[in-house]
């Protein structure tokens, strides 16, 4: 591992970067991002089309979380804050964090700035699973026992396994073949969904609605479904920050430096795909976040993966919570599709950031 340090140092000096990143150098930024995210979450819970005062909102939250009854609030306010808004905001945060984090991880292991969480066929696989449930006679409910999330999850995992299996060449898995087989599996899945949409055209809207993604049916159950996968993925991938940095140099070079490239890639891929599959299963396909948020983080804080990974999670969470706030409250009564909001508002923001920073995006540290 001495080699890695030396190489990193050489690399750092070439780019005139400051001293090696240590945990205490990282801590303030992370703490700030975490605080910001929590603040965004709380503010989002206080806002919505129904006017509920922040005091009442916090009262309801305190009531449920701490068992502290802070004055009386109406049953309707309680239901809206605790059963509707709180799980919706948390689910948006969880999905945003997962997608941005997984996107950063995918970009690292594929060494490709266009990599995003759906590149390995997660989205297409999940769509096939969800679509099959929607067109089947299976009951579709927004309630606890909906077969939709497990079907989407299974579809996503099947697609990723297929893509990974097909990309294998002997004992190694070249990243170019991985991307290509991911694209191929995705297009098979997409055509299946298109076919099902046309064949069952009475359900076209339901399918389209699922594909566009939404947090309108968020519930505590969905939060509970997705969070274990997300937390495990964070825990597994975060320690790989430095290895992912090395991986950016050159695959052969990284191998020489003692990095088991295929093993790292497999671990990161499995963890990120599981988390993405769980996120997609509970929210549908929300594009843009997984691709753009990691790049935005790099633009502001630089390309070091030890920083990019955690910051992408926090920024992804805040971003999607804010976008969903717009989706659910721009109109007094009606829902805007979250995918439309993320693209319409997120894309110009990102371009603005890109122009202001006045530098090209660097994926490699």
């Amino acid at each position, binding site marked *: 591992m001495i080699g890695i340090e030396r190489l990193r140092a050489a690399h750092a000096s070439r780019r005139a970067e400051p001293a090696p990143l240590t945990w205490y150098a990282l801590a303030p930024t992370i703490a700030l991002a975490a605080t910001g995210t929590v603040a965004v979450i709380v503010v989002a819970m206080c806002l919505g*089309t129904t006017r509920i005062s922040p005091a009442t909102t916090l009262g309801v939250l305190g009531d449920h979380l701490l068992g502290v009854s802070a004055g009386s609030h109406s049953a309707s306010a309680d239901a809206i804050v605790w059963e509707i808004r709180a799980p919706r905001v948390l689910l948006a945060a969880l999905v945003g964090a997962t997608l941005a984090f997984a996107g950063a991880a995918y970009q690292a292991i594929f060494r490709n700035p266009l990599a995003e969480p759906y590149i390995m066929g997660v989205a297409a696989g999940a769509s096939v699973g969800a679509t099959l449930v929607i067109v089947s006679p299976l009951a579709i409910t927004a*309630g606890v026992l909906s077969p939709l999330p497990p079907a989407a999850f299974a579809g996503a995992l099947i697609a990723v396994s297929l893509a990974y299996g097909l990309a294998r060449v002997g004992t190694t898995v070249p990243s170019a073949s991985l991307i290509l087989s991911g694209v191929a599996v995705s297009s098979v899945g997409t055509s299946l969904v298109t076919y099902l949409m046309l064949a069952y*055209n009475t359900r076209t809207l339901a399918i*389209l609605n699922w594909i566009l993604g*939404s947090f309108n049916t968020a519930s505590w159950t969905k939060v509970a479904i997705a969070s274990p996968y997300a937390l495990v993925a964070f825990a597994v991938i975060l320690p790989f920050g430095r290895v992912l940095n090395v991986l950016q140099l050159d695959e052969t070079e990284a191998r020489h430096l003692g990095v088991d490239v295929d093993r790292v890639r497999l671990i990161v891929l499995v963890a990120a795909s599981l988390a993405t599959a769980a996120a997609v299963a509970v929210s549908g396909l929300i594009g843009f976040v997984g691709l753009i948020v990691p790049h935005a983080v790099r633009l502001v804080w630089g390309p070091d993966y030890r920083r990019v990974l955690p910051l992408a999670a926090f920024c992804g969470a805040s971003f999607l919570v804010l976008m969903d706030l717009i989706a659910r409250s721009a109109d007094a009564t009606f829902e805007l599709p979250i995918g*439309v909001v993320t693209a319409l508002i997120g894309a110009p923001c990102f371009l603005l950031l890109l122009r202001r920073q006045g530098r090209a995006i660097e994926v490699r540290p």
Partner: protein
Amino acid sequence: MRISQTWWRWLFAVALAGALAAAACGGGSDSSPSRRQNPNEPTLVGAPSASAPNYPIEVRRSDGKTLTVGQAPKRIVSLSPGATEILYAIGAEGQIAAVDKQADYPDGAKNFPTKVDAFEPNVEAIAALQPDLVIVASDINGLVARLDSLNIPVYFADINTDIKTVDDVMTQINLLGRVTGHTDQATALLDTLGQRLRAVKDKVQGINQTTSPKVYHELDSTFFTASEGSFVGDLYRTLRARNIAGDGGGNPYPQMTQEAIIAANPDVIVLADEEFGVSIDSVKARPGWANIAAVKNNRIVAIDPDIVSRPGPRIVDALEQLGKAIYPERFQ
């Protein structure tokens, strides 16, 4: 129990276009589309004469052109499930050559040997049936113009612009009666339906629409609903009930947020999505819904989505059923 294809197609288009339009302009659009008279609304050209069919008959179509019917058609291809129901109800079923795949009422239509796809209409397949009249409710992929170019007579009454109210359905029954040569049956049907319609209107007479029961009409489990600007919305207007979706921001089939539904606190919930697995019990079990008046007071009803959304004679059944659900004390 399947929703008419054209209707879902409309929803599908709305989901795409409405999303962008709503995002772009924030919903500044015509407020009461159902009351707006379309200049192209299919009407008889010239004064409607005595009850006997009086060919040739001229009908103005939704695209502004005129259809001339020289004699009673004998090979009708109906691409509209609603029109098919009307044809059966006025005794014109013997003149049908084909119905569309969504036609499932009455049994004769459901089991009709020849069916065509109205969602992706195949002009060649339709022409091969040698129809002397094609009934079109949705001009998909330039269907009307393509049939025109083959000199196939087309009766085109656009379901999205010209059949938006209960009264429009009555107009359709009258027109199809004349066109098919079943004026007497159509008149008799209109008499019966008219009586039932008046009975419904009498029962809701004098109800104050600012205090009447609030209704949430659910189309699917992601809270798509029918606003006042939709065909379904006209039923609630006729019943003088309040639609919690209001004018839908100009969108006939908007998606509500759960928060808005709970805050609106509807007195009655009407489920048009039972066939998709939503049940009265599953609605009651939804987190946060327990305090909605309709849930507390057990005022959730399921309705056959076809009878509320399909512009056919059963629209009056729908009115009676909804009336009973909203005003149980007035509709015994």
